[in-house]
């Protein structure tokens, strides 16, 4: 038994060191790009597009399920978006609350007949409404079919060549869409998807659907999620995007070339990770066509979203994410280590399997060995000690580094006290937050084999004050 535990210990230690180094390597790749654009006057670089008729019009899709608290403020923030031509389509996916009613009342909507093109099959569309104040706001009321189905219905109704998918509880910064469309326009359509950064709104002051003061929440659970987002977006996505092997564009905010999405078959209704699954399928399509088109992550456009404050909701969210990841990797297992798919098959897919998915299993074993080593002589305490230090390095120091990197590059949080708080909370990660995440992510792997798809069940408070 001790022999097995010792071998396992060495494997886990080697794994954690390897993963940590891969994070650092990825950041080194991304650092140049973030640093290069850091001092760029963002307003100057986008203002020309505001008056430019060469911009592509965009359909903004807002899938909503039981979002009566946040849906109106989300649409209001979208109305304020600076973009030459846009339409807003809210898709009520069979909500049990008053999501549709709130929209109909607030925007004085009327039922209209609409000749929808069915590019992608969806659950039954019950009615389509149009605002009589802002005719470019529409509402689709449809039977429940899940978030992917709702987005597909939005794609069917949309009139423009690009669509932006945004969650019903999110607030997009005024120039966020413009910044996301800029690389698409500048690449003359060679970039088919752009994903922006998602940030946690809890603790910030949001009024009139606009983030007025960026601040930090009091709750340690939410603070840790902010650190986690830094780690995921700054360390992971930027570098993967740089190499054109990014597999995730957050469901909360992304812009897509509609024709490509329809070609790929739209969002997959049979997975809970429909955002990642679509991106992987688009990569697959591009590689099979030997296309040079790209998928890019843009660090600057910011979408603010409400993070779960209770452990129960966070648990269910993480289980869902992990299921989504596993389902996507399983559905596209043909691409894994397949040279036909280039760097996606040879690097990105194995990276997501070993670092993002199985990382939880390795860490779980690691915590088990530390506990067993210190309290039950499962392994030599010396080995358990090394394991403990590596876990602290992997869990806390890398996260603390992500906080420092955010400050070094984007520095979105204005006060010195913000930096200090985030840094010191990040250091505590390996001792309480990470074990919880590891446990839930392992649970997510198990859940993949048990449950069917459903919307997240977070109870919204609304992020607008």
């Amino acid at each position, binding site marked *: 038994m001790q022999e097995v535990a010792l071998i396992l210990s060495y494997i886990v230690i080697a794994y954690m060191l390897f993963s940590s180094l891969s994070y650092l390597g990825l950041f080194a790749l991304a650092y140049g790009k973030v640093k290069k654009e850091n001092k760029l006057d963002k307003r100057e670089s986008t203002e020309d597009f505001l008056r*430019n008729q060469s911009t592509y019009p965009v359909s903004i899709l807002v899938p909503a399920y039981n979002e009566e608290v946040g849906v109106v403020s989300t649409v209001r923030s979208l109305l304020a978006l600076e973009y030459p031509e846009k339409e807003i389509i809210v898709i009520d996916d069979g909500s049990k609350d008053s999501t549709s009613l709130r929209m109909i009342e607030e925007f004085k909507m009327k039922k209209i007949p609409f000749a929808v093109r069915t590019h992608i099959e969806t659950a039954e569309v019950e009615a389509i409404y149009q605002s009589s104040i802002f005719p470019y706001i529409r509402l689709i009321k449809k039977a429940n079919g899940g978030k992917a189905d709702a987005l597909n219905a939005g794609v069917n109704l949309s009139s423009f060549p690009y669509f932006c998918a945004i969650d019903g509880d999110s607030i997009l910064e005024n120039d966020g869409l413009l910044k996301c469309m800029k690389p698409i326009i500048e690449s003359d359509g060679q970039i088919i998807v752009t994903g922006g950064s998602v940030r946690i709104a809890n603790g910030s002051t949001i009024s009139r659907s606009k983030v007025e003061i960026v601040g930090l929440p009091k709750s340690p659970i939410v603070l840790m999620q902010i650190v986690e987002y830094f780690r995921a977006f700054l360390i992971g996505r930027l570098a993967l995007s740089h190499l054109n092997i990014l597999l995730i564009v957050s469901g909360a905010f992304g812009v897509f070339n509609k024709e490509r999405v329809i070609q790929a078959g739209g969002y997959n209704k049979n997975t809970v990770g429909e955002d990642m699954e679509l991106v992987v399928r688009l990569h697959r399509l591009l590689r099979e066509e030997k296309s040079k088109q790209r998928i890019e992550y843009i660090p600057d456009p910011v979408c603010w979203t409400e993070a779960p404050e209770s452990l129960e909701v966070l648990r269910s969210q993480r289980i869902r994410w992990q299921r989504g990841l596993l389902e996507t990797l399983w559905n596209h297992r043909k691409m894994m280590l397949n040279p036909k798919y280039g760097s996606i098959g040879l690097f990105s897919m194995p990276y997501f399997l070993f670092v993002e998915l199985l990382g939880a299993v390795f860490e779980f074993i690691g915590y088990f060995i530390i506990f067993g080593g210190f309290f039950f002589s499962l392994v030599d305490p010396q080995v358990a000690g090394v394991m403990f230090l590596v876990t602290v390095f992997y869990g806390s120091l890398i996260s603390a580094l992500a906080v420092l990197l955010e400050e070094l590059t984007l520095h979105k949080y204005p006060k010195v006290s913000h930096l*200090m708080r985030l840094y010191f909370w990040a250091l505590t990660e390996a001792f309480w937050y990470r074990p919880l995440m590891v446990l839930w992510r392992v649970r997510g792997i198990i859940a993949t084999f048990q449950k069917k798809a459903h919307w997240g069940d977070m109870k919204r408070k609304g992020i607008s004050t």
Partner: protein
Amino acid sequence: MNLSHFWILIASLFLGQLLLLLILAWRKQQSNKREAAINSQYDALTDSFSSYMMDPSDERFIEELKASPYQLVVLERLLNHYVSVTKAGADSPPVSRLSEEFLSTRYVRLLKRGNWAMRMNTLYFIEDFRMESLVPQLKEKLAKSSRLDQETQQLIRTLASLNETVAIEALAKHPDAPARLYIDVFKRLDELTKLDELNAALNEENDNQTLKHSAISYIGMAGMTLFLPRIEEELQHPEMEMRIQALKAILHLQYMNSPSALAPFFQSAAWPERMFAAQIAGKLQLSRYKETLGELLGDPVWWVRYSSAEALTQFSEGDIVLTHFAESHPDRYARDMANQWKTSLLGSEQ
């Protein structure tokens, strides 16, 4: 490697981070202080700046500015805010005078510096403030650039804003230069130069098709009816892309000398041509094509059906025609489309 090695490794990484944290915190504090000082000077100078912009003989602002420790940053922000709010720049002598006097030396230095973002910002500001004295430096920089990267693209735009036709020559050296860049250049040239360049572009036959497409497209966007006869000639062009650009331009111009030239496009094998023809028939209210629009309501392509129905709404009795088609058109999709547009018409009337 034993436990103590790991301890040393982790401890040194932690101490390294702690040091970085302290440096970043100090840097943040300094930059917050500096930003607060700049903001306070900006506020303090706003009044005298406004007076100066209205009456440049009022030298109070110049004196106050010279006394400011952050004069260049504050002036840059004041001018930038002024040109973005008033959309001035080219027509504002005080903006040119202030920027040439205080900022040109700094910008010459920045244009040569290694930092990409600072160079880009400088190019944006030179364009906004129309700093003609920097044209030689910009031309020199353009001559050195071989790739059409973001910086060269902005350099070309900036030169165009200073009415330098070298911008078009530089673009022509890149066969893959996109139409939007040519359009950006046309937009920035002054009226007379623009007319010459558009004329020259329309005379391009085989050498630079992108330039010609862009010129047609720009003429439409800018509503330059002066070029209408030339655009109508392009409707006969053997190349489809050119014909489509001409149709688009006519749609924007909202006028045609000979509407009969539109007739062949309703039967075109290419759906974008049918779609634009339908849109033009609606926008120009060419009632002779009303019946054809009714036929196009049953077109196999959704966009053509959509545009035909939309076109019918433009006619005074559009609601009656659409009601008729919604009930009796032989094609089911045409009935759906007519129904959708009929309702939208009712909505707009209410």
